[in-house]
C-alpha cells in the first residue's frame, strides 16, 4: 500500500469528471500505514511545481464516499443511521440559512460583522459529528455550525452577534467570537493559528492526567503558514498528543489563494515532516469527512498520536461581510464549486435513500427563520453590557488602578449612542 501517494497534477475544476473515480483505494488507510513512523521516503522527493487547487478532489489519494449519483462507496461509508444523516443535513442547511440571514442583518446595519461558512458545511458538521461527547473543539472562527451542533444554544450565538449583556463573551469581542464551555467549545481569537498550539497543550494535559479525550483543532489552509501550525504540529508529533488537526482548505485566505501559502504539493503531506499521518478528504462529502475524522479521533484516543486532515472544500462567500471577493476572483470561477455544493450533493442522497422531499426543505427553512427571528428579537431587546463589565475579569479581582479608571468612566460623560 502506498502511503501519501503523489497527487496527480491539479485539474481545472471545470474538467471534473462526472462520476466516481473507482481507482480510489479507500485511502483513509493512510492513517494506519506501516513502516518507520509511517513515513514512506518515496514521498520526500520534491514534486513538480503544480498549481494546487482544491478542485483536485479527484486525485486518487483523496478520500471520497458520496458518489455523484447520490450513492455511497461502501469502502468508505461511515454507516450512519437514517436519523443521523437527516439530522446532519438539517444542521448543515440550518447553518447555511443562518449564514444567509446574518449577512442580511449585517447589511441592514443591525449587527456589525459576520464571518460565515458558505460551502464548507460538510467539513464543519462532519468533523463535529465525528467527535465524541468528551472531546473538545478548538475552533478557528468559521465553525459556528459545529458549536451549535455540540449544544451551544442559538440564542447565545445570536447574543454574541449583537454583543449584548447575554453574549457569552459579554460584548467584549466582535461577532463570531463566541465560546461555550458546556459544549466544550473554547474561546475564539482573531490572530491566526493561536488555537493550534493551545489545542495541542490541552490534549497533552489530558494525556498527562491519563484522561480519555481528543481535541479537534480547526484552522484554514492559510494558518499552515503560521508559526503556530509548525509549533503545534511539532509538539504534537514529539509528545504524541491526542489531537486532530482539521485543516479546512477552502482555497482562500481572504484574497490570497492556496498556491501563495505553500510550495508543497498538498497541505496533508506536511504531516510527514512531523511524524504523523496526513490525509486528504473531499471536504464537500459529508460521509468521507466523517469517515476520516472518526478514524483520526479513534487513533488519537488509542494513544497513537495526532493526525492532520486536509478537508478540500471551497469558500463560496467572501472572507467575511467586510470583504468583496469580486475584487480578486471573477464570480464565474465559482461555478464548478457550486456544482460540488455539499448540501446539493447530500440532498441528492437524501432524496434517493431517505425519502427526503423539497417540502421538508421548505419546512426546515421556515422553522429556522422562525427561531432566528425570535432569537434576534430577544437579542435586540437585551441591554448592552454594563459599564462596569468593561473592567471585570481583566484580573480575577479588581486592582486599584482599574478601580480608579472605572470610577473615571462611570462618573464621566457617556459616548454618543451609548447602549446601542
Amino acid at each position, binding site marked *: 500500500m502506498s502511503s501519501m501517494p503523489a497527487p496527480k497534477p491539479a485539474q481545472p475544476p471545470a474538467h471534473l469528471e462526472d462520476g466516481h473515480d473507482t481507482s480510489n483505494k479507500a485511502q483513509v488507510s493512510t492513517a494506519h500505514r506501516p513502516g518507520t513512523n509511517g513515513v514512506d521516503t518515496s514521498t520526500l522527493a520534491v514534486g513538480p511545481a503544480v498549481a494546487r487547487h482544491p478542485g483536485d478532489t479527484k486525485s486518487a489519494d483523496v478520500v471520497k464516499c458520496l458518489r455523484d449519483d447520490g450513492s455511497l462507496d461502501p469502502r468508505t461509508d461511515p454507516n450512519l443511521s437514517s436519523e443521523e444523516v437527516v439530522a446532519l443535513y438539517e444542521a448543515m442547511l440550518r447553518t447555511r440559512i443562518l449564514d444567509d440571514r446574518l449577512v442580511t442583518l449585517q447589511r441592514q446595519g443591525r449587527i456589525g460583522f459576520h464571518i460565515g461558512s458558505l460551502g464548507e458545511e460538510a467539513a464543519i458538521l462532519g468533523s463535529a459529528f465525528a467527535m465524541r461527547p468528551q472531546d473538545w473543539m478548538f475552533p478557528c472562527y468559521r465553525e459556528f455550525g459545529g458549536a451549535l451542533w455540540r449544544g451551544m444554544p442559538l440564542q447565545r450565538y445570536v447574543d454574541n452577534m449583537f454583543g449584548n449583556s447575554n453574549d457569552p463573551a459579554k460584548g467584549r469581542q466582535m461577532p463570531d467570537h463566541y465560546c461555550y464551555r458546556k459544549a466544550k467549545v473554547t474561546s475564539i481569537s482573531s490572530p491566526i493559528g493561536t488555537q493550534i*498550539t*493551545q489545542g495541542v497543550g490541552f490534549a497533552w494535559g489530558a494525556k498527562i492526567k491519563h484522561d480519555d479525550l481528543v481535541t479537534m483543532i480547526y484552522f484554514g489552509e492559510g494558518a499552515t503558514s503560521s508559526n503556530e501550525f509548525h509549533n503545534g504540529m511539532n509538539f504534537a508529533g514529539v509528545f504524541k498528543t491526542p489531537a486532530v488537526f482539521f485543516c479546512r482548505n477552502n482555497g482562500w485566505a481572504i484574497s490570497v489563494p492556496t498556491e501563495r501559502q505553500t510550495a508543497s504539493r498538498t497541505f496533508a503531506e506536511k504531516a510527514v515532516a512531523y511524524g504523523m499521518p496526513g490525509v486528504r478528504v473531499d471536504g464537500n462529502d459529508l460521509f468521507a469527512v466523517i469517515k476520516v475524522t472518526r478514524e483520526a479521533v479513534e487513533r488519537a484516543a488509542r494513544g497513537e498520536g495526532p493526525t492532520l486532515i486536509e478537508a478540500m472544500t471551497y469558500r463560496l462567500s467572501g472572507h467575511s461581510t467586510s470583504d468583496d471577493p469580486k475584487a480578486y476572483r471573477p464570480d464565474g470561477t465559482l461555478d464548478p464549486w457550486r456544482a460540488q455544493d455539499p448540501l446539493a450533493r447530500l440532498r441528492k442522497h437524501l432524496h434517493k435513500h431517505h425519502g427526503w422531499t423539497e417540502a421538508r426543505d421548505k419546512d426546515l427553512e421556515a422553522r429556522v427563520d422562525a427561531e432566528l427571528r425570535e432569537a434576534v428579537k430577544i437579542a435586540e431587546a437585551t441591554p448592552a453590557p454594563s459599564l462596569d463589565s468593561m473592567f471585570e475579569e481583566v484580573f480575577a479581582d479588581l486592582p486599584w488602578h482599574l478601580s480608579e479608571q472605572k470610577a473615571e468612566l462611570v462618573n464621566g460623560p457617556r459616548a454618543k449612542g451609548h447602549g446601542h
Partner: protein
Amino acid sequence: MPQMNMVQAINDALRLEMRRDPRVVLMGEDIGKVGGVFRVTQGLFDEFGDDRVIDTPLSEGGIIGTAIGMALYGLVPVPEIQFGDFIFPAYDQIVSELAKYRYRSGGEYSAKLVIRTPVGGGIRGGHYHSQSPEAQFIHVAGLKVVCPATPADAKGLLLASIRDPDPVLFFEPKRVYRAAKGDVPEGDFVVPLGKANVVKPGKDVTIVAWGAMLYEALDAAQKAAEKGIDCEVIDLRTLWPIDIDTIIESVKKTGRVVVVHEAPKSCGLGSEIVALINEKAFLHLEAPPKRVTGFDTPFPYTLENEYLPLSHRIVPAVVETAGY
C-alpha cells in the same frame, strides 16, 4: 533558618509547590536532566519525572502556546523561558491569548500560568542575554509582573504567584541569582503580591528600585548617608499591579524621589511611576522626580557597566535631588 541563594530559594519553592499541588507542571528548554542553564530546576526531574518536568522542543512560542492549553485543561504550568530576551516568539500567545483568555470568554475560561525567566544584565551576556522587558508586559491588560530581589522574596513571591488566579510573569534577576544570599523560611512561605517592601527607612530622598538594582540603590543610599542624605529605599517586588500606596506615602514624607531601573528610560516603568507621583503627590514634591535607568539603546556588551544604572550613577542623582 537556612541560608540560601536565589537559585536555591526558587528551587525550594518549586519543589514545595510540586509536592503540594499535583497540577503544577514545569516545562522549558534544558530544564529536565540538566536542571536548567542556571540550574534553577536541578533535581526536580529526578523527583517528579518527565511528565512534570518537561524538556520541550526549542520554541518559546510552542512552550507558551501549549502551556496555555494545559492551563485551560486545569493544570498549572510554570514554563521557563531560558532568557527573558528569548520571550518574544511567545509574545503573541502572552499578550493576545494568555492575558485575554478570561476577559474575552466572559469568565468561562481562564489560563493560569507563571512564566519564569531570568532578566537583566551583569553576566556579560550582551544584548540577547541582558534585557529587562517588564514594561512591554506591564502595558498589556491582564498580566501581573513580579521581580524579587532577595532569596526569601523569590521563594515567597513565587509561591504567591503560582497560587494567584491571574497569569504572572516572574522575572528573576540573574545578576544576583547566586550573589544574593540570605535567610529563607523553611516550608510554606508566601509573600503577598502587590506589596512593596521598605527595605531601608529614611527621610530625605525616596529611591524606588527592584531586582538586582535594589543592591545598587542600597549601596548608593549608604554613600549618600556619608554626605548627610538619609534615603528611604523601596523594593517594589511586584512591578504590576504596582503598590502605589507605599510609594506615595514615602514621597509625601521625603518630597524627593529617584526611580532606578535597568530597562531603557523612555516609557519604562519609571515613567509610569513618575506620572503617578505627579498625579497623586504633586503638591508634596520638593524636587523634580528623577530616573536613573538604562539608555534607549540596545543593551551593549563591552560597555555593560556604563549602561547599567549602578550606584556610581545613582549617587549623583540622589545628591542633585536632595539639593534641589
